[in-house]
C-alpha cells in the first residue's frame, strides 16, 4: 500500500471523510453524503491492527448474540461486510467512521441471517444459501438473540455505575454529559468504561 493511500486511509478512518484543514467536520451536500468506492477502499486498506482487533471483537459480539458463536462465522460476517462496502452494495455514509459503518453492516447482516435461520437453520453467511446439514451440524436451531444480549448485559447488573453509563450512552449522551449527569470525574468515568471493556472482552473470548 502506498504511503499516500495509508495517509489518506488513516485520515478517513479517524476523522470521517469531510474534514477541513482545521480538523472541523464540514457539512456535506446531500448528493455527496456517501463516500466513493475509492475512498472506501483507501479507508479499508488503511486499517491498523487496533482497528482490525475492534472489528473482530464486534464480529464476535454479533456471532455470539445472533448466530452460532463460531469464530469462523464471525470472520465470515466481517469479510462479508467489507466485501459489500468494496462492491458498493453497502454504501458508506460519510457522517460515520468506516469502523462504525462496518459495525452497522454486520448488525444488519447478522440480523438478516438470524431471521432466515429461524426458518432454515443451515443458511450460510456469505452465500445466503443453505449448506448441507453435515457441514453446519453445530448451528443452533433456535437463536434467541434477545437472551444472548441479556446474558451480556447481565454481567453489569450488579454494577450500577456501569449500567448507568451504558444506559446514558445508549440514550445518546456524550462522555462529558454522562460525567455531569452522574457527578463523576473523568478518571472515574475512565475506570467504569475500562471495567465494561474488560467484562465484554472476557465474555467474547
Amino acid at each position: 500500500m502506498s504511503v499516500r493511500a495509508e495517509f489518506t486511509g488513516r485520515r478517513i478512518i479517524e476523522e470521517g471523510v469531510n474534514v477541513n484543514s482545521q480538523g472541523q467536520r464540514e457539512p456535506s451536500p446531500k448528493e455527496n453524503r456517501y463516500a466513493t468506492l475509492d475512498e472506501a477502499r483507501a479507508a479499508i486498506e488503511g486499517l491498523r491492527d487496533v482497528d482490525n482487533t475492534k472489528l473482530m471483537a464486534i464480529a464476535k459480539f454479533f456471532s455470539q448474540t445472533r448466530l452460532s458463536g463460531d469464530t469462523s462465522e464471525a470472520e465470515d460476517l466481517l469479510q462479508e461486510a467489507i466485501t459489500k462496502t468494496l462492491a458498493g452494495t453497502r454504501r458508506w455514509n460519510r457522517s460515520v467512521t468506516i469502523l462504525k459503518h462496518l459495525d452497522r453492516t454486520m448488525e444488519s447482516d447478522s440480523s438478516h441471517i438470524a431471521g432466515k435461520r429461524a426458518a432454515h437453520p443451515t443458511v450460510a453467511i456469505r452465500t445466503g444459501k443453505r449448506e448441507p446439514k453435515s457441514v453446519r451440524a453445530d448451528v443452533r436451531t433456535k437463536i434467541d438473540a434477545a437472551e444472548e444480549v441479556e446474558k451480556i448485559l447481565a454481567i453489569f447488573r450488579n454494577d450500577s455505575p456501569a449500567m448507568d453509563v451504558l444506559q446514558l450512552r445508549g440514550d445518546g449522551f456524550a462522555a462529558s454529559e454522562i460525567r455531569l449527569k452522574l457527578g463523576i470525574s473523568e478518571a472515574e468515568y475512565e475506570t467504569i468504561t475500562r471495567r465494561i471493556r474488560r467484562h465484554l472482552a472476557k465474555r467474547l473470548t
Partner: protein
Amino acid sequence: MNRNEHDRNKMSEALRDLLLEASEDDLRDAFANAGEDFDILAARGRSVVERALASAEDSSEVENLHRGLGVLIQLLRRKKRLSLDELATEARVDVSEIRGIEHDATFDANPRTIYQLEQYFKLPSRSLVLLSGAVHVEHDVQEEVVRFAASATEMNKLSREEKKELNRIVKFLQEYTDR
C-alpha cells in the same frame, strides 16, 4: 419493537461503541485481562480484511472476462442473424443464460451452456471456458479481452470493423488454447 427490545438494542450499541472508541492501550488491557492475545486477534482481523480485498480484486478480473464473453457471444449471434430465443433453441440452452451472458458481467453461466455455445459456434475447445472466469487466465489474456470488449460496438448488422475484431479474438483464443 417493544420498549425492552429497543432499550436492549441501544445498550448493545453502547457496548459496541465503547469498543470502537477504545485506544490500543485500553484494548490490550481489556483482552489481556480476558486471557486473549490482542496481536492474535489483530492478525485474524487483518487476514479477514486481506481476504476481502483480494476477493474484490478477483471479482473485477472475472467481470472483465465476462464482459468479453458477453460481447463475443453477441457478435457471433448477430453474425448468424439470430435473436436470443433463436440462439437458445439452436444451441439447446436456456434463453435466460444467453441473456445473462450478454447483459450481466456478474452472471456466472452454467458450464453446460458454455460447452454448448462452444460447440454451436465451432469455437476452439475451452476458449469460452477461459472467458467464463472458471479458470485463472494470464494477464495478457485479460488485457486482450478488455481491449476487444471496448472496441466492439452495438449495431444490428456487424460492421467490417466488428467482423475484423471478432476474427481477431477467435484467432487469439485459438492460439492461446493451443499453447
